[in-house]
């Protein structure tokens, strides 16, 4: 058993977490996706039989904003505590940035950059890479393909920021990591608590 890195983290109650003031029962969700499809995720919106214009209309009407991104990743479980990344404040709403902003989106092929800065609970947390990987995977699986996900450690929050950031930004390394059974099992467990 791995030694626990941070035995007493600050845990927020779910009611304290940022959420939309008027949360409708049918929150618009991204295309269907299952956590166990991490490896070689299919692209349902590509081969989908439903007409693509419907989907485009949907995005136009309600473009993804920072709160949507937060909702997608705040529910990921921490790898060593029975709580979520939102409750541990590893994921924070003010540290999520979309460019261009939701009001300036041009079309389904124009790129949208999602920048997420993570704050690991302790600055030497060796699980930072795994948490970052889970966040990147979750977003890549659920967001439409014109989104580019950049996951980094918040400045000074982690002892080896540069190394972790470079690794998380490396598409080839991420792809290879997802073919590692041990790591994949860990990620699957972390993503189990995500709805839809």
């Amino acid at each position: 058993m791995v030694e626990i890195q941070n035995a007493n983290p600050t845990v927020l109650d779910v009611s304290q977490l940022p959420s939309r003031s008027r949360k409708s029962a049918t929150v618009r969700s991204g295309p269907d996706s299952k956590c166990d499809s991490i490896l070689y995720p299919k692209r349902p919106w590509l081969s989908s039989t439903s007409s693509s214009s419907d989907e485009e209309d949907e995005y136009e009407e309600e473009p993804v904003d920072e709160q949507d991104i937060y909702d997608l990743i705040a529910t990921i479980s921490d790898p060593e505590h029975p709580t979520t990344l939102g409750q541990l404040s590893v994921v924070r709403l003010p540290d999520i940035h979309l460019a261009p902003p939701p009001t300036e989106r041009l079309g389904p092929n124009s790129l949208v950059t999602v920048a997420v800065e993570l704050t690991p609970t302790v600055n030497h947390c060796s699980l930072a890479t795994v948490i970052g990987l889970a966040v990147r995977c979750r977003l890549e699986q659920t967001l439409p393909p014109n989104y580019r996900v950049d996951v980094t450690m918040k400045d000074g929050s982690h002892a080896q920021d540069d190394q972790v950031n470079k690794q998380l930004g490396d598409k080839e390394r991420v792809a290879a990591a997802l073919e590692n059974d041990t790591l994949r099992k860990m990620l699957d467990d972390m993503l189990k608590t995500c709805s839809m």
Partner: protein
Amino acid sequence: MAPSATITPLPPFQPDLYTRAWSSTPHPTLPLIATAHEKSVTVFSLSTLSKHSSLTGGHARSVRSAAWQPSTSKGSPANRLRLVTASFDSTAGLWSYDESSSSSSTLEKEIKAAALSSDNEDEQEQEWEFNLVLEGHENEVKSLSFSPSGQYLATCSRDKTVWIWEDVGAEEDEYEWETVAVLSEHDGDVKCVAFAPHIEGRKQYAKMQSQDCLASASYDDTVRIWREDAADGGEWVCVSVLEGHGGTVWGLQWEGKPREKGKFPRLLTNSADATLRVWTLKEEEEDDDEEDTTTQQGGFKTGFGAIPNSMRRSLREEWECTAVLPKVHTREVYSAAWSAETGIVASTGSDGKIVLYQEDEDTKEWKVIATVEAAHGPYEINHITWCKRFDASAEKKGEEEMLVTTGDDGVVRPWEVRIA
């Protein structure tokens, strides 16, 4: 007037692969292109733009790239296809596709016939034989390159090393490869390796070195140039470190178009820093005299032996960055291709753009001559290559060049390029 070009999409290769495809490597002479995706390789016909055959069952993890062994190798029959695959399972695989009783023209006919009838796919898949697995790397193998003669194969890996293997079984027509060098000077994953092409009529640059020259690109943001030191029992040594990129160097392309006065080919690199750079070897003017001397002394080996030890030139080479191509990409540049015919450079990457650049012959300045946005829709593009056209609508089959891009959407798409 500024030069310009138009890039027009042609119908994609059939069938779609549906999931991420990493790279597509054209055969040096035959109308075939090998696309690496998931744990396999699909070979497409450039004549019919559809599937020719596939290589499956050899690797436990994804295949990242593939390389065709040049058929000029000693003992290797011209009608035998040989492909090597680089896999995330830490191995490289050697495959062959045997044409038992045929010349290469028969092969082409079969390629067309096979591609036309899609219902005998299973039979075709039996044609590729998995001959040998090259084991040694500790992590994912990312790229491979054959030396121009086909005698050497270079492989590189996340384990920070480059391995050089020699085809020692070629003469007996056996599958036997030996490790001749393990190069471990990079501080990070080695992303790409490429042997320099042999250029006809090129001056023998450094007399004590063999013709083969290898370049490697790395996650440590550098490029290294390696040569075999003939004086030191064929030891491979790093002769130069190219520093300048501000991010992982994803790829390398040697200049294939011969340069004036037989100068050594330049090197093009593409990086995560969203730029492309051209590097040039500093060559000394005195080369002309030395060449004469060597010739008088009766060629390479004699000439070398006659030079006293103290006068031997250092193996160290000076490479300088002679151009940074105009910046168009907004994200990582995953791949670039340098046409051996026209000298035009094409690049692509995370931003989904295709960009073409041409060097002005007089000013030596690089200009952007065409850009395609969202070339694979919203998806990232992992690879771009030039290759010859053999399809029905080509004006000059086997001569005219086209581009082929490979994307995260599993689409492999040819593009017609017209230079104004």
